């Protein structure tokens, strides 16, 4: 256990935000979960008792007839904003006094940093470089993330859960977002920051960064792994391209069928509300997101590098 190494990583000034992000995220997930739980209980109670549902003010906070429904912004909101500004200023001041912004040696194109890391908020994408070619990890994925986020309001047709925390009424959308944000984005950043060392190799926390470590990994492509009884391994470039297209296309077809089946059975109302375009867009984006951990496990567990090989691009 190399404590010094661990301390060096955790106390690197630019890593401190990530160290701060973990407890912050945990706290806010807890805060959201607590309110979602309370709301869900209230919803259950009101659904069981229609008479109460007609008269109840439908919030978990107390409200009595005669209380004012609205409050003045001055001072009830402005004092919170003012207080917030003061607290942020104090935190920022203390942080700036105690911790210096990093400044390395002058830029030198002839002296490569190892590991050369992107800013911490892009480390998730850099981690993806291990599993995907740069055009996917660096260009297609960020574009898909942005487009995927932007279409969310147009493909989520569930009218429930607007303006309050809930879990029961939005299981699919919330678990999808949590998966994308916490597991695929934040966890990858944490891996990229704390785990990845020289040569972008995997070093467990507390393991010494060995700059001379070599790992002999034989990564193979899926067409080479096709077993003999299925006619493999595939050797011609032409056949490799067709094989990959079938595998990738098949993933989306079978996956799309599975999502369809799931929605039709478990989320019939949501499915009814969605147009065909909304549904297929949602299924495509969802399957693309799920493809990330699938490709990662292909690589980590079976040492498979590419699934689809063509003369122009590899996936």
């Amino acid at each position, binding site marked *: 256990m190399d404590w010094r190494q661990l301390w060096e990583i955790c106390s690197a000034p630019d890593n401190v935000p990530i160290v701060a992000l973990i407890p912050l995220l945990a706290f806010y997930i807890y805060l959201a979960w607590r309110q979602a739980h309370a709301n869900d209980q209230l919803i259950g109670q009101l659904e069981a008792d229609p008479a109460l549902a007609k008269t109840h003010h439908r919030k978990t906070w107390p409200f009595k007839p005669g209380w*004012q429904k609205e409050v003045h912004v001055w001072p009830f909101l402005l004092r919170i904003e003012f207080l917030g500004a003061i607290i942020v200023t104090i935190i920022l001041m203390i942080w700036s006094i105690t911790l210096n912004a990093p400044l390395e040696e002058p830029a030198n194109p002839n002296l490569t940093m190892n590991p050369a890391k992107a800013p911490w908020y892009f480390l998730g994408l850099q981690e993806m470089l291990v599993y995907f070619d740069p055009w996917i990890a660096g260009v297609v994925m960020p574009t898909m993330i942005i487009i995927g986020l932007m279409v969310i309001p147009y493909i989520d047709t569930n009218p*429930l859960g607007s303006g*309050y925390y809930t879990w029961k009424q939005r299981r699919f959308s919330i678990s999808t977002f949590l998966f994308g944000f916490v597991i695929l984005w934040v966890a990858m950043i944490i891996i990229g920051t704390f785990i990845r060392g020289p040569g972008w190799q995997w070093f467990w926390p507390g393991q010494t960064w060995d700059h001379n470590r070599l790992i002999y990994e034989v990564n193979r492509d899926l067409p080479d792994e096709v077993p003999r009884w299925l006619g493999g391994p595939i050797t011609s470039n032409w056949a490799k391209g067709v094989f990959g297209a079938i595998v990738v296309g098949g993933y989306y077809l079978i996956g799309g069928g599975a999502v369809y089946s799931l929605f039709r059975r478990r989320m019939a109302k949501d499915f009814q509300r969605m147009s065909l375009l909304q549904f297929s867009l949602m299924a495509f984006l969802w399957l693309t997101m799920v493809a990330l951990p699938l490709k990662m496990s292909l690589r980590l567990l079976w040492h498979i590098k590419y699934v689809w090989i063509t003369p122009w691009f590899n996936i």
Partner: protein
Amino acid sequence: MADENNANGKNGNKTGLLDKVTTGVKDDIQALKTDIPAKAKEQIEGLKDPTKTQVYTSIFRHKHDDTPRNRALGVLSNVFLHLHPAKINRDAVRYSYTWGMGGITFYLFIILTYTGVLLMFYYHPSKVQAFRDVLYLEHDVPFGKILRNMHRWAAHLMVIAVWLHMFRVFLTGSYKKPREFNWNIGVLLLVFTLLLSFTGYLLPDDQLGFWAVTVGTNMARATPLLGHEGPFGSQLGMTPYNDVRFGLLGGSIVDANALLRSYIWHCIGIPIVASVLMIVHFWRVRKDGGISGPAPVMLTEEADKPRRGPKAAGE
């Protein structure tokens, strides 16, 4: 009195004039002794209520008395505060619902603008001077170190605050009708926040920034169609000297032009675009009906029924 004395003297007119002057002066002195103190006293009394002075009434367009009307006017007639409504839902001020992250993000943007402008006084975006300027700032400029620290940490905090803001907005379903468009503006603001931080990373011109930006922009080489190493790039005539990476860096390597470009994007280009988007974002928050909640919970069976109240009429 003056007339009686004049009647007996040869030089009645002259003495009369002198007399007139002396009595006049005496009169003035008398007035100074009595009227001016009285007037001054009256005016000082008036100053005890500064809200009645002309200066005050010219600045603030309403009275300061603690009445509901004045509380509302205090918000509505102030250019900075009138982003708020005069009154809000009593539960909307609950921190557990809003987390305050949108406001904190905006406040951090203000801090970053302020510290950023101060930093610009000491910084030249050229290969010769950039790194030296940062050294000078850290060691010689009074409060230069804390200035740079605050700018850096506020930027990191802003990234975290934006993420948490988006997380909250998602969990409360606040992107749902009628706020779909504002969610999209928010996604763009998220992208611009990351780009602002990323373009600032190169400016100290040290190893950290240089290699982070090298790693980051190397991905642009692999852009499909537009990068010389991306799929179909070379078929479309892309080389290291005309592809999208060349456009970003102003050259084929991260050098003086890249430094200048990232400086201009960082200090002028992106802040202007982001400010415009922020204006739209805040304006839409109001136009879409203020913050989304905490709203009364909806029951599952109500999902496809028109909502009660004025909104039902519109749909």
